[in-house]
């Protein structure tokens, strides 16, 4: 088995980025809730957050299972 540390780079990068995004979301929780519950053009905020976190977290989870070696049967 090759050294798993080699594959840690992207895993940690996306993991770190995801953690930062979630931290920001909850650090500014009251402001975000206040803003988005007003409606109107504030809809852009949830759309942007959804895209950013989906991208980062999606990549992180894919790398995570791959790193653990959990794969489909073949």
């Amino acid at each position, binding site marked *: 088995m090759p050294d798993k540390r080699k594959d840690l780079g992207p895993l940690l990068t996306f993991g770190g980025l995801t953690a930062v995004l979630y931290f920001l979301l909850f650090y500014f929780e009251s402001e975000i*809730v206040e803003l988005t519950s007003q409606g109107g053009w504030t809809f852009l905020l*949830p759309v942007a957050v959804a895209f950013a976190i989906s991208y980062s977290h999606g990549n992180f989870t894919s790398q995570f299972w791959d790193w653990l070696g959990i794969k489909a049967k*073949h």
Partner: protein
Amino acid sequence: METINASFIHLDLVGVLLLLIFGFVGGLVSGFIGSGGAFVLTPAMMSIGVPGIVAVASNICHKFPKALVGALKRAKYGQVDFKLGAVLGVSAEAGMLYGAHLQESIKTAFGHAGSNLYVSAAFVFVLAIVGGFVLLDAWKIHRTGDYHAEEKLTRLARWVQALNIPGTMIYFPSIKTRISFLVTIPIGFATGMLAATIAVGGFIGVPAMMYVLGVPALMASASELAIAFIMGVGGTIKYGWGGFVDIRLAMIILAGSLFGIQLGAIGTTYVKPYMVKVVMGVIMIVVLVSRAIVIPVYLSDLKLIGEIAPETVRHLQNLSFGIMSLALLAGAGIILRALIMGMHTHHKELAVAAATTALAARRKPLRLSPVGHFDHILTATDGSEFSAGALRVATRFAKRNQAELTTMSMVMIDLEIEGMAAEVIKQAEGEARQVLAAAQAVARAEGYDTRIELRQGLNAHKEIVRLADDQHADLIVMGRRGRRGVALMMVGESTRKVIGYADCSVLVVPRAAGIWERRILLATDGSRHGEMAAEAAGQVAKIFGLPITLISVLRPKFDDQRRAEAQLEVDRVRDALSREGIEVDSNMLEGADPAAAIVEFARQRGADLIVMGSHGRTGIGRLLLGSVSEQVIGLATCPVLMVKA
């Protein structure tokens, strides 16, 4: 839970944890059964006090980026009919906007109780029909044992495809025929309407595409992702405009569901097909019961029935929550058990196979220095024109040296979003096996045989390097991407990374290149890597009986001392090769662009193999080949051997 304002609940730690668990289990279930997890998530959110309209809106918001990613990935397998997706998507968008408008009107007229009643009643109705059908189907498969029933065109689909209404016909590639848009409009509208009501439009969209239009199942589920994206954007804007999207809920659920969805998708490959349907049907029916239990509470709130005692309301809500939790835990339990047991058995089988290979490797005599030996050659193919040259050269090299040859191909698995995992993987594997069978035929036509290996994973380069490590390969032979425009200087992402990460040497073969027959050009830079390259070049020269042209490129900025050192190094290498009985000539070139100088000199001397040393870089540097090496690989018309120190 108390509310911060009219729509959004206050989130405490327990709420966050519950949402995470719901997200994970919802993801697990949706990955496993290949359907949007929202039919689990929306009721789950409602059962912890989230108003129905906010639950639906937040789910639509968390889904559409995933739908986009999923649609793009499935498009790689050629499963998305974008034209059908767009045509259905437009009418679905109209259905979504109308459905969302209806939701908001109900909420305005009857408050959250009215909205909750509307969503719950829709769930009970839809889940009863869909859940019933799914269980019936599972029973049929179990009874007949017909797991791989061929898809037949329904009578309705045949009629729809035969229908000709002039001026309304559109050709769809997935069905390979023309269909009237008057048929697609109601399907799209109903899909959008249902998505706006319960956040799962696929319950209508996928079966309608399959049974009414005659779209194959794989393409229907993939094209549904394109529709879900179009609807999701419209729905999020519509609900977001009204201030109903609680992005915190959506993102916590996403955090859990992304972990779950991939595990669930992998899980399907370890269980019998009817099991997937049993889990799906049972969960649907239990969720239905959980929703139905609280309907009297909403009716009472709206004063449509007599008032229910607060104590009874609490009991009903707790019972609903308990049943929902039980359904999710049972579903998760079945899936995880299937996954763990299946993987355990599968790993045992793989371990036996690996032990056999390892034993065979140990029986071979040990070499103290692997540099310059080419006893085991690994080549990777994706069946494209770019890997054809690599396969040809690898076979001839292996045959000449009587080396073991392994040809690998891989299935890219990244199922973070979509379901139907088993079918997607099966199809991708089938295609990869065809590629490998074709590769084996090419090798046999050359009068040699190759072992074939199929791997699956997220990144081609990782799997290639892992296999090379597992098999103690001495050389990896890979193709090179295009030579037009910007691609001229590109080695190809996978090839570049394999050179960076592999412990053995890598031979990069352009599409049209063949095995070397005339001369080897060895480029040295006076480093330790250059000496390794010389050793490897010497071995290849002896195997093929070819002369070597040795060069070192001096840049104009080099001072006298550096030039003298370079000359000394070239002389040392030339003498060493001559002592081995190899015909060698040495040359010092001058040029500001060493890569261009090397490639041009190779062309002038008629060399048809270039050998260079590769810096065994670590960390980020692994991803960056030396710029000279990369340019030589990009510019050369002959194979380039990168020797690892």
